[in-house]
């Protein structure tokens, strides 16, 4: 079972590398914001699998916290790109 977790985390890391190409080469800022949001979502899944691989149960709290940080970050970025300011 440990090998299954190890292979899963390796495959998730490979897909993160694929999304990194779009974050670097996407024409314009919107493609880059979407790619960073996707990398954040994959980080959450990777943290949960790593918590089982290293036998540390505290990684799940970090995953929960990072899910909220990722969500709020993308929303604030989208609001800034739409209006040009955050507080009105």
């Amino acid at each position, binding site marked *: 079972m440990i090998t299954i977790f190890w292979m899963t985390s390796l495959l998730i890391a490979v897909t993160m590398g694929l999304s990194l190409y779009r974050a670097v080469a996407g024409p314009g800022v*919107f493609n880059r914001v979407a790619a960073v949001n996707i990398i954040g979502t994959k980080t959450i899944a990777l943290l949960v699998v790593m918590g089982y691989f290293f036998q540390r149960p505290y990684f799940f709290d970090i995953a929960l916290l990072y899910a909220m940080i990722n969500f709020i970050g993308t*929303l604030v970025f989208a609001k800034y790109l739409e209006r040009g300011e955050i507080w009105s």
Partner: protein
Amino acid sequence: MVIVHTLVTVLLGAGVFFTLVGSIGLLRFPDFYTRLHATGKCDTLGAGLIILGAVIYHFFQYPETFLVPAKLAFLVFFIFIANPTATHAIMKAAYKTGVEPWRLGEKRR
């Protein structure tokens, strides 16, 4: 126990497959709006299935701590609500700023 291990392997494999499809769609599609289709849907379900597989594994392997699978189940529910909202927000910002959608037969952007 073997049944639980097989089920967890199947769930993890399906989750990794959907995440991979989401990334390939991010590279292959010709326009910003279509790329958001690929990632906003597939990546949500992929991460959800991976964490669901971990929940089932924990529930049968360490049955005395049942608060940890409840915490992870709440994480899945939060991902299912938060990811489409973030996708919609970034798409609304792009539409209002004037990014043109792609029609059939144009050049790649």
